[in-house]
């Protein structure tokens, strides 16, 4: 009798302790998360918005499966615990056609739904697909260097390091390459990422729908200074953007071949810089330098598309 009481108290203690630990963990997680910027969910671009919705739909669908699994797991485990001798014991119960059909069937249905979502969303959100808009897009060529980002505005005839200014509500067409190990170009608040690879040109499109400054990073390790390969995306009103372009055109620094060779040298945590574009073919030259005459004859763009 006394032993029963002791065990009961122990059980109560265990339950209280686990509730306390759970609440503590949740409390700590809320405390360290609140007020922080969550760009994948707090999106500011046409593409990222759709990607966020997609993520939320997939998770919602997933919880339809996960929650019943948890309920089944814990209720069956509790009901058929060895101590509960009242529960039915059927050691030979090893298969049931109906039940098994049910759990081959339900996941199949779930996957069919998800497959349709996948097929549609993958085509709709293909990073190579230009954004449908009446506004004339801004073209930006991206070159990942050791360990900084060089952005070339071929039409505006300016170039920047580690920041881009863009007009809001305007599609931005990126072509991306690398003159360094492989990097990945990612601005989570505006769109998902695409790799930057030397000798190849990949594409990405996005459009900011509000003004503000967003963080961009390299998402793929590329050597010593990789962690410092961050850049800012400043989305602004068209007028502000035009003013910036005008001002940049009078920048004292020119992106000549000599300047590029200087930029190409490995350096960490590079400061932002603005240049007047001098060599209009620079982006292609950077790609073509990996295409030596003995090398593969196919163009970079083709290879990346394969």
């Amino acid at each position, binding site marked *: 009798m006394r032993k029963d009481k002791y065990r009961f108290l122990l059980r109560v203690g265990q339950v209280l302790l686990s509730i306390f630990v759970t609440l503590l963990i949740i409390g700590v997680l809320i405390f360290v998360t609140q007020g922080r910027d969550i760009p994948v969910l707090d999106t500011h671009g046409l593409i990222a918005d759709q990607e966020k919705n997609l993520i939320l739909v997939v998770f919602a669908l997933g919880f339809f499966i996960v929650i019943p699994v948890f309920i089944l797991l814990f209720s069956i485990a509790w009901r058929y615990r060895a101590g509960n001798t009242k529960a039915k014991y059927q*050691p030979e119960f090893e298969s049931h056609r109906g039940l098994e059909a049910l759990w081959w069937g339900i996941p199949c249905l779930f996957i069919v739904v998800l497959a349709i979502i996948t097929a549609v969303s993958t085509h709709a959100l293909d990073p190579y697909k230009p954004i449908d808009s009446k506004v004339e897009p801004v073209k930006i060529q991206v070159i990942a260097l050791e360990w900084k980002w060089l952005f070339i505005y071929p039409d505006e005839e300016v170039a920047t390091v580690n920041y881009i200014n863009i007009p809001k509500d305007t599609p931005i067409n990126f072509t991306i390459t690398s003159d360094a190990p492989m990097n990945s170009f990612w601005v989570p608040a505006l769109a998902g990422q695409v790799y930057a690879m030397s000798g190849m040109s990949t594409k990405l499109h996005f459009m900011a729908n509000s003004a503000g400054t967003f963080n961009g990073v390299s998402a793929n390790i590329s050597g010593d200074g990789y962690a410092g390969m961050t850049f800012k995306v400043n989305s602004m009103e068209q007028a502000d953007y035009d003013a910036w372009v005008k001002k940049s055109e009078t920048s004292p620094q020119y992106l000549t071949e000599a300047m590029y060779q200087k930029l190409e040298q490995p350096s960490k945590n590079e400061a932002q810089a603005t240049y007047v574009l001098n060599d209009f073919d620079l982006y292609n030259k950077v790609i073509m330098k990996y295409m030596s005459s003995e090398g593969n004859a196919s163009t970079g763009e083709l290879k990346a598309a394969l």
Partner: protein
Amino acid sequence: MWQGIQELVFGRLTPSDFVHDPIMAGAGIGMVGALVLAMIALTYFKKWKWLWKTWITSLDPKKIGVMYLIVSVIMLLRGLADALLLRTQQAAGGSVEVLNADHFQQIFSAHGTIMIFFVAMGIIFGIFNLIIPQQIGARDVAFPFLNSVSFWLFAAGMILINAPLVVGEFSAAGWLAYPPLSGLEYSPGVGVDYWIWSLQIAGIGSLLSGINFFVTIIKMRAPGMTLMKMPIFIWSALGSTSLIMFAFPILTATLGMLALDRLLGMHFFTSDMGGNPMLYINLIWAWGHPEVYILVLPAFGIFSEVVATFSGKKLFGYKSMVIALAAITFLSFTVWLHHFFTMGAGADVNTFFGIMTMVIAIPTGVKVFNWIFTMYRGRVRFTTPMLWFMGFIVTFTLGGLAGVAMSVPAADFQFHNSLFLVAHFHTMIVGGVLFGAFAGFSYWFPKFTGFTLNEKLGKIAFWLWIVGFLLAFVPLYILGFMGATRRLDSYDPSLGWQGLFIVAGVGVMIIAAGVGFQLLQIVVSIIQRKKNRVGEDPWDGRTLEWSTATPPAEYVYAVIPTVTERDAFWESKKNKHHKVAAPVYEDIWLPKNSGAGAIIGLLAMVFGAAIIWHMFWLVIISFIGIVVTLIIRLTNDDTEVKLPAAEVAAHELKRGTV
């Protein structure tokens, strides 16, 4: 002139390669110190001969299995120490430098490589060695000597991957060393070579071992054990080993090409001269994705055995389970591209690989339901292995959900290479493979020792692991949504990530405490072995391994059993009123000990070290040494020793009376 000779003899090795920063030097001195201490102890207690005769030269799979497990546990501690260092750097605030970038990158590259190749793979092969022959009613594996070679190649790789703590540096290119970063242009040092050659040598060991166990399962099952009467763990091992046979040659070829790029300046994977890094990324994942299933399928098998035994009930839906295992085995070769949806492949290609990835969730989901329903109408005993099982279902389902979310390409663009991804694969590999290994360890431990592990300490370890695990990885999921990428040695403190990294760091420390309790559990259990002594069948087992002596005799089965049904041992216990005919003992042939495996391992290690440091004369000599050792061993026909029937009978009589 003098320099020329030096280069000829020592390759690129110079005295300055032994100089390390304090943390690495400390780890190096610690490792070498422990080795020296062990050697002194062996000399003092005059145990060298014992070590050589009973362990190093042994071809007994039970001994080889234990050696695999010992190596894996030591490597688990190394990998865990790496994890602690990584989290310390990240919790320090983003701009504080505990480790410099290069050192940080070496550590995460080592952490990943060691945890997969020398912890997870080692544990899987350890369990294969200990369990497979017994469970199929065989005395040994198909090729006992090959088994020893496999283990010593694995050990050679293990030593090579730890050598950078003492001499040289390790790769800083991540655990899969993507070119062009891992190419000669961006990584001219020895680091990537260490990575290549330790994996190449251990990988060949894994391939040989995979072949060995595949043949063992196909050819050596007890009479009557048809494929559909095999225990489900054997099915999972069959899936795993067939994956090894198809996937590991890809790894060998890929590493070989990368080595040629680096040694001879070839251009398989460079960006210029017609080379193509995308080829490498495809090849490495054509191995890498099946590798995940090589590890997790056996864990599925272990959980199936555990849940059936501790529910006192047949495994639910055996046929479904087999079909699901086969489906996963096949499908695992059709999804590798989901590791790089972001490489710019077209929407059609991405859609195909995304859907194939989701399809794997179907058989996996079926398995989860079958496991849960194995408990239905059972009598579930919540011993430590069952707790690991419950923990596994919870973490694996949640991690699986994250995985399904990432299999949608457009969603993956936001998750790829972020800490969300890191959290996902840790949930799967820790919650799947490691929890499975822990469940299997406490489940089968009494079979080989005759006493159970201390339950109380085991349960404390479990709860520490679960809490630590949630604390270590839930923050990483959140950080992924915040745009934190993997492998960051520094970040802008104004992003406010530090709090989450601190929580994650605390989680790793709690996990480390859990590991501490597991080690304590083993020590305490050995001290209290008299108290926890159990017989041959402590859990009311179902499969054949519980019918053998505890600990099993070297020959395991005096008489090879005949199987008529699934769960052969359970059925034989049920029908024990049938009179069993007196056993007829026969002479048993056992493999003789052989030192050739260890010698080949040693020479392979020398070969690896020599090629890493460009000492080409030594490369040639050690290679010739390996070939000569093999020829000597393979031309020797006197490799077995006879155990006379009388001796077997005497041994079995003793077992009957204990």
